[in-house]
């Protein structure tokens, strides 16, 4: 029993990390149909900037704030200078731009920061919480909690605010949105900025558990993307559920099957789920127009 609880605890820890990253994909996709492969780099920038600001002597809360602001600016710049000029290009070309951006950001990060691993102190205590023979880090609960809070905030935003409705309108039909007076460029600006901020916050909260380095973004983006698709791209709750599920699959595979193949098991399950439910768990089936 104790080991089952520990596997669940590990699954929640890792899953919450994936969930936070996956959330970052949601808003940009909602507003513009783009999968932003630089999302992992936003997470990395949040963590690394905080670490280096702190090393430079800035008190931790301010370092975190600076990191979030800086990353948001990077997200905005990504849209304005890289994505926006290519508006109207095919989806694959846009994805390639974000891939180019992620390579660029990684390349800059190794020079501005360094190539080593870094950590941050956890938000609350470092002592693990014991329950039923298993131990979970308080920081894992913080990550889980923030994912939930962000989902709720996103839902409130999309459902209850005018700006949120404008985002939905932009995604549904860009031309129509512009015709009714929505500044679609500002909307997509906004979605990039908020996704970057979510990514930065994710990075700051994840680093105490998973450490960070200039290339931490790649694997996180991979898993986050898979999680977002599993949950159904465009659904914030789906992103969180997808992330938690992948974390659970990995932990249980490592615990009960083979630790060598835990990633393989997780991806196999994703494949099976997608084959059975082609639009993901909470995704809306896409209506194809001829």
């Amino acid at each position: 029993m104790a080991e089952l609880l520990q596997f669940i605890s590990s699954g929640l820890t890792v899953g919450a990390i994936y969930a936070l990253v996956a959330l970052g994909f949601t808003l940009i996709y909602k507003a513009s149909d783009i999968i932003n492969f630089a999302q992992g780099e936003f997470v990395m920038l949040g963590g690394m900037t905080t670490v280096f600001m702190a090393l430079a002597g800035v008190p931790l809360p301010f370092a975190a704030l600076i990191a979030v602001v800086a990353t948001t600016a990077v997200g905005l710049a990504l849209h304005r200078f890289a994505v926006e000029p290519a508006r109207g290009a095919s989806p694959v070309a846009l994805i390639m731009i974000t891939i180019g951006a992620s390579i660029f950001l990684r390349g800059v990060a190794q020079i501005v920061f360094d190539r080593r691993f870094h950590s941050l102190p956890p938000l609350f205590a470092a002592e693990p919480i014991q329950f039923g023979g298993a131990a979970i880090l308080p920081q894992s609960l913080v990550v889980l909690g923030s994912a939930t809070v962000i989902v709720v905030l996103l839902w409130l935003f999309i459902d209850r605010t005018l700006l949120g409705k404008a985002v939905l309108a932009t995604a549904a039909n860009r031309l129509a949105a512009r015709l009714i007076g929505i500044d679609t460029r500002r909307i997509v600006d906004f979605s990039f900025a908020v996704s970057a901020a979510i990514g930065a916050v994710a990075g700051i909260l994840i680093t105490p558990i998973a450490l960070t380095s200039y290339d931490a973004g790649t694997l996180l983006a991979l898993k986050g993307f898979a999680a977002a698709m599993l949950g159904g791209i465009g659904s914030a709750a789906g992103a969180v559920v997808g992330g938690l599920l992948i974390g659970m699959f990995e932990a249980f595979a490592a615990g009960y099957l083979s630790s060598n193949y835990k990633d393989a098991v997780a991806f196999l399950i994703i494949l099976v789920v997608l084959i059975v439910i082609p639009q993901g768990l909470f995704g809306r089936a896409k209506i194809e127009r001829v």
Partner: protein
Amino acid sequence: MRLLPAIAIAAILVILPYFFPSAYYYRIGALVFIFALAVVGLNLLMGFAGQVSLGHAGFLGIGAYSVVIGPVYFGLPSWLSLFAGAALSGVIAFLVGRPILRLKGHYLAVATLGFGLLVAIVLTNEAGWTGGPDGLSVPRLTLFGWQVRGSNAWYWITGATLVAGFVLALNLMSSPTGRALQAIHDSEIAALVLGVDVARKKLTVFTISAVYASVAGSYLALFNGHVTPDVAGFLRSIELVAMVVLGGMGSIVGSLVGAAVLVVLPQALTIFHEYEQAMLGLIVMVFMIFLRRGIVPSLAAAFAGWRK
């Protein structure tokens, strides 16, 4: 006339070595041809049929490891292992493609991503067969009793295979299957309505692209003399997709251009030392923003516009 691109490429291939100061350039040329071969296959899938694959390096890996496992564990000659690998890739593509190709867009991307990762994980873990993360040495290719050594020899072998691959692809594209694929790309539903067996055509092109990638992977392993699991890795898959998109989706010639850019560029960018990765990312972004349909289609359009 339709084979003009292939003839032009063959001509360039023959003339180019006159400009090569050393064996290093032959090596770069051979690498470009190897990747171009894989990219032609992927282009058929992505550019013509409009299906995205983020795991194509998996087939590269199957081809690469088959020319090690065949000779080392089964005593098969290398060329036979190459064919065996291609056949294996085709079969796996057929089996995996049937359920996966029902997915659309980003979901297909994740599914293919998962496939590529699975292949890489198996290659890394089954060290008894594959030598694990450090990989294995590949026995050299012997053709008609002559051991193939040196970048020069490989330049010609890979070049010839590429031209053959071009011809096959060009023929495919102007055949009824090719037209069906273009119809599927433009609108799957309309193609279905017209009576195109969409599922079967998609599976066909997926299998063909897998075979192309497998042959390229086998060449890569034989040429390098050593193979490691990251030949099937995620970054390799992204590299292949980048070559397709950069060169021009749906342009067979673009496949060669895309491969050339992404093989030569990292070599050229070494002068930037620390900044080479940043420069690479910047150049990819710039290319995609200004030549968003890919190099060859954009240049062709610009040329046509200029002529008017």
